[in-house]
């Protein structure tokens, strides 16, 4: 029973939503669901926060290796949460001075924007920037002419990489006009227009069918591996 009811909830909800796309009266059902979903996800943050706190409190109480770092995580979590939830140090919005919480957390000079600018931004954007190093090491290791597929992968990447800088212009810029299509920068555009478009198009058609089949497996009750509920 604990698995049957959720399955039927999924089936009815899914078909109703599918139908709503065709009925102009219910056209906004999708947007409404997006709102409902965002609210449920925001409420579920309590569960995530609980998991985070439990995980680190257990580490602390057991004095696991690296428990000191758990103090940092928990401490920064709680401090940020308090500053943000209570809008500490935020002045009301000048247009609505009578509403105490009308100011935005993002206003310049607030503790919240300090956290954003000097902690979140450098930490996350540096993490993002690590990619520049990883593209280099991946290219060194993976782009080797082992077989036809690998050769195509590597040659295309090579053409595009060169075509995107001044180096490409220096190497092939002297090609006469009638062969201008073979200049690296034009060749890379050609590759994008023809091969990339064909590949991406087929991938998209395949994904659409994959999504449809996955969705139908759920809505027909064939695939229930995602269903929890305990007793089978």
């Amino acid at each position, binding site marked *: 029973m*604990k698995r049957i009811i*959720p399955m039927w*909830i*999924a089936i*009815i*909800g899914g078909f109703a*939503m599918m139908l709503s796309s065709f009925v102009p009266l219910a056209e906004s059902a*999708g947007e409404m*669901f997006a*709102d409902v979903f965002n*609210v*449920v996800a925001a409420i*579920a*943050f*309590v569960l995530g926060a609980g998991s985070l706190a439990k995980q680190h409190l257990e580490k602390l109480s057991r004095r696991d290796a690296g428990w000191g*770092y*758990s103090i*940092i*995580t928990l*401490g*920064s979590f709680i401090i*940020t949460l308090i500053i*943000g939830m209570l*809008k500490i140090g935020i002045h009301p919005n000048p247009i609505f001075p*009578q*509403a*105490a919480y*009308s100011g935005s957390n993002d206003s*310049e*000079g607030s503790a919240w924007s300090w956290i*954003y600018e*000097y*902690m979140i931004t450098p*930490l996350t954007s*540096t993490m993002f*920037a*690590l990619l*520049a190093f990883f*593209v280099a090491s991946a*290219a060194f290791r993976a782009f080797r002419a082992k077989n036809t597929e690998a050769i195509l992968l590597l*040659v*295309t*990447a090579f053409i595009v*990489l060169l*075509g995107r800088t001044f180096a490409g212009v220096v190497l092939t810029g002297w090609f006469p006009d009638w062969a201008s299509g073979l200049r690296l920068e034009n060749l890379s555009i050609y590759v994008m227009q*023809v*091969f*990339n478009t*064909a*590949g991406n*198009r*087929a991938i*998209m058609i*395949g994904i659409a069918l994959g*999504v449809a089949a996955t969705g*139908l497996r*759920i*809505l027909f009750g064939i695939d229930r591996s*995602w*269903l929890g509920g305990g007793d089978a």
Partner: protein
Amino acid sequence: MTRQGKTWLIIGAVFVALLVARGMIGQGLGRVYVKRSEVIVKLPASSTSAATISWQEWKQVPPLEFDAAQKANPAQTEISFSWPRTIGLWLAAFFTLAIFSFLYADNPFYKIAESLVVGVSAAYWGVIGFWDTLVPKMFGALTPGLVKSLVQPSLLDPENMQQISMVFALILGVMMLWRLLPRGGWISAWPLAFIVGVTAGLKIVSHVESDLMAQAAATMKPLVVSVTDASGAINIWASWWASVANVLLVVGVICCLAYFFFSVQHKGVVGGAARVGIWYLMITFGASFGFTVMGRIALLAARVEFLFDDWLWLIDPNHFRGL
């Protein structure tokens, strides 16, 4: 001491020495200056307390402006050095280096940065979820009076449908949280099932419409194209290239589709087509890889610029310090 430990020590010592040396030369190291301004706001007439409230705001200004202001009037207090922001700047530089240090090896600095970013960002998104979703959407629909008086006086009155959907969302949310109680945690499977089912229903429609149908329709191109010049004559070379491009495109789409066939063994004609299909996919991937590299390097360049420009004051591309 291990070899790695020694390496760390040497790197650290050289780094600190360079930093101190940099600090003694020229304009020194990163500092932040702020300009103060007064904000005075009139309270609505009905209010019984003071007619106005005021507070000070500080905006960041380039060091150049501070120098100019000091030159004009050494006693000015409008533009001043900001301790909290300068500390923040140095912290940001520390975090940047701490994350980069992970490329060498896992180390305590990275672990500190990692612990902090997890704690701060988890709370950050929780707070965003509360103020940007729960307050305007849910509380705005269910308790509009409260939201209007405390947060957003300009809030529009909620419509009936909005209220119904938010009551529904609240019920789903409460069912999710039921898990925290000792009994009946299974009920949280219901909202999850609803979300999964609705997602499946919505995505089937949107993917079939925009991916399957639209992409297939766009592929119905003629294999022979005639390109005419401005004068009206047919340009043979351009027509030839355009035709080749269309043929390659159509062949590519069909062959890649053949690659994705599951219930047919990849032998014979299908096998050959699937092989051409995988070639196309590899070219696609190579091109995307090459194209993305540029953006990734731009990200690294931005971090390096932060270190050199904002923190170390080694370069001044925007002429903020009048080099």
